[in-house]
């Protein structure tokens, strides 16, 4: 069958590899909402003339979230589970004129890739890391994830998860990152504005996006319907201006605080590298 270039219809179509749409995501999966919000932030930066679409590189590991890299109409790498951050580090150090965006699930970024996350933040490497937290290993069918709440029954914790989750925002904030924020797919405008801000900064920028996985996590917690899951998450999400790290723990019972936890302008790795070399 001869491939025609699909016409641009939706205002975000130019960001998409349209021949791969519809995506493989399940109906109502939050990842697409997050991606759309990020595209709108990119559009704003493009319109300001501050960013060149040809200099953007998306990097993802493996997982439903990382698979977003298959759909973006940019330079993109879909690499190994957990290794998106070191791959992205190589890209940015080899060509500092690029803007590197890492996207992945909490298993990819904070589980198997946790040590890379820590070290990239410690080094204040010039990259944006977007971690989609859906509380489960979705792609592999519903095993426990680093962010799964205590007590939740998953396919590998059939008696309930005995482990308290990692608060990844807290971990990254304790390091040398320049920006740490959390949004939710129920607040796409905050995803957009945090990502917009991150695009204008240097150094290591980390955005956690709390997401919905109605297909797998929804099954675990009895919220199989995308709208139910969305509404239950929305009920719990509270935006705060300048929230403190103390209130950053994610709790399905007491609520999920979103907002900008950290914003500063420490010298980035690239800045320090050129500084040292200049001497």
């Amino acid at each position: 069958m001869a491939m025609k270039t699909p016409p641009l219809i939706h205002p975000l179509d130019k960001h998409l590899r349209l021949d791969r749409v519809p995506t493989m995501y399940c109906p109502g999966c939050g990842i697409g909402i997050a991606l759309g919000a990020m595209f709108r932030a990119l559009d704003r930066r493009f319109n300001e003339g501050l960013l060149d679409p040809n200099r953007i590189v998306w990097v993802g590991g493996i997982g439903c979230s990382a698979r977003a890299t298959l759909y973006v109409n940019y330079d993109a790498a879909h690499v190994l589970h957990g290794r998106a951050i070191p791959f992205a580090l190589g890209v940015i150090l080899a060509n500092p004129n690029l803007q590197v965006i890492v996207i992945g699930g909490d298993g990819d970024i904070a589980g198997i890739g946790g040590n890379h996350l820590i070290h990239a933040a410690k080094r204040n490497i010039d990259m944006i890391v977007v971690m989609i937290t859906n509380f489960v290993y979705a792609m592999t069918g519903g095993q426990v994830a680093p962010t799964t709440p205590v007590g939740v029954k998953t396919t590998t914790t059939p008696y309930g998860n005995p482990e308290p989750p990692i608060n990844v925002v807290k971990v990254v904030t304790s390091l040398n990152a320049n920006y740490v924020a959390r949004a939710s797919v129920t607040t796409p405008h905050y995803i957009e504005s945090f990502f917009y801000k991150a695009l204008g900064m240097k150094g290591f920028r980390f955005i956690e996006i709390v997401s919905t996985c109605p297909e797998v996590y929804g099954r675990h917690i009895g919220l199989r319907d995308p709208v139910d899951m969305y509404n239950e998450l929305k009920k719990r999400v509270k935006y705060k201006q300048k929230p403190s790290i103390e209130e950053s723990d994610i709790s399905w019972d007491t609520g999920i605080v979103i907002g900008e936890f950290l914003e500063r302008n420490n010298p980035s790795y690239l800045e320090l590298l050129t500084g040292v070399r200049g001497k």
Partner: protein
Amino acid sequence: MVFNLSALEEPYALISREHGKFRVCIIVNRCKECGLCIAVCPTKVLVKSSVINAYGYHPPEPANIEKCIGCRLCEYNCPDFAIFVERVG
């Protein structure tokens, strides 16, 4: 609104309705019938249509278009880039 069913045959069929200020468009064959747009619309513009798309899903239709306030929440919350809102005139 006149909806041409034969348009469904082609991959980029649109359901589209407008009033004086806004037009709401649904790209029929991208919709996965998740219902999020219908749920987030503050003025209940959208309802599930009886149309069945190429993947067997029922996309929404802006049945109560006259109530649309152009907030774009449907567009921002659609995970599949299937619905968008345009300003008319």
